[in-house]
């Protein structure tokens, strides 16, 4: 429906513009924070090859965050560095899943799989977005996300099926992570305007797609999806676990010594 498309980012106005700004913060902040969390494995992963792959993917996520922050900057928000390093926790719009400490390798791998499955569902939908610059960006990021999902899936299948110990750790990780992962799809007041404008599907629709994407892999890994656990919401309105403040205190430390310094 090309006649209804928003060809340029400055074609947006009113409620739709406000909704896109909110959507971009959610996308960017998820990427920045999971990227930072996964980078905490650099130098610590179980084996060199796994370390390099996980660190490289963390860099990819940071790159995605920067691309979304650049779109925000075009919409009149502050520059990408200030958005990453100059905001307080309550200004972030990331889901709780990405804030959680890295835990053990099994947890980080499982989180990476659950998160990248959601990212794949989102980017597939956004590559059809009526907001052309966002659709183009989503199309460009899909290759990297495809690899991330292959990586997460392969690890989850192996750790789920390897030994009693690895299986037990993966099931514990899933029981803990799943309600947080459902929080990736926290509905917002912007769901309706974004869906009506053809910019992004509603969160409940994306959640449905995500559940049918992860369920068969988790089953093949011998893992049981916990039932009846309520989603953990709050991230999309700035209510975060304490872990986010701790993360930002470290990540923003150097920037905050002199925010005007030139690098």
């Amino acid at each position, binding site marked *: 429906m090309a006649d209804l498309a928003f060809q340029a980012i400055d074609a947006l106005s009113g409620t739709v513009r406000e909704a896109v700004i909110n959507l971009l913060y959610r996308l960017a902040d998820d990427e920045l924070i999971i990227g930072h969390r996964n980078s905490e494995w650099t130098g610590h992963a179980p084996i060199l*090859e796994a370390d*390099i*792959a996980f660190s*490289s993917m963390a860099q990819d996520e940071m790159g995605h965050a920067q691309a979304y922050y650049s779109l925000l900057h075009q919409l009149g928000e502050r520059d990408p560095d200030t958005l990453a390093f100059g905001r307080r926790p309550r200004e972030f719009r990331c889901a709780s899943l990405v804030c959680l400490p890295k835990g053990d390798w099994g947890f980080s791998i499982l989180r990476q799989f659950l998160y990248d499955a959601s990212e794949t569902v989102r980017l597939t939908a956004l590559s059809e977005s009526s907001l052309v610059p966002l659709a183009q960006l989503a199309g460009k990021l899909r290759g990297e996300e495809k690899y991330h999902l*292959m*990586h997460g899936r*392969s690890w989850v299948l*192996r750790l789920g099926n390897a030994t009693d110990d690895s299986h037990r750790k993966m099931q514990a990780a899933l029981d803990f992570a799943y309600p947080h992962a459902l929080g990736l799809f926290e509905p917002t007041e912007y769901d309706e305007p974004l869906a009506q404008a053809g910019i992004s599907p509603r969160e409940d629709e994306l959640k449905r797609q995500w559940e049918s994407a992860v369920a068969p892999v988790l089953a093949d890994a011998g893992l049981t999806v916990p039932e009846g656990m309520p989603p953990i919401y709050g991230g999309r309105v700035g209510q975060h676990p304490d872990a986010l403040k701790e993360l930002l205190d470290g990540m923003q430390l150097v920037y905050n010594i002199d925010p005007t310094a030139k690098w």
Partner: protein
Amino acid sequence: MTDTQWKVFEVFHQQARGEPHVHVGSVHAPDAEMALLLAKEQYSRRQACVNLWVIPAEAILATAYENDDIFERGTDKSYRESWGYKTPKTISDETTKRRSDKG
């Protein structure tokens, strides 16, 4: 010296379709599929890549360096130094060039 418990896979990297796969190093991995995934970040993140091969190192049979005298030439064999002939690489280069000239 004991190595990790994971097997060693040799990695071959192809920069563009039609180019030969070139050995670039090795990775440790529990199986071939994981070896491909790990090799992807290890060996394609700093250069163009369209295809990777991984091969279990144990599948490779190599000559022994103590026998490297088998490669020495006992008499003048310069007539074998056939550098004037086209190699598969140059043929593929010229095929690619012909195609792009047409296109």
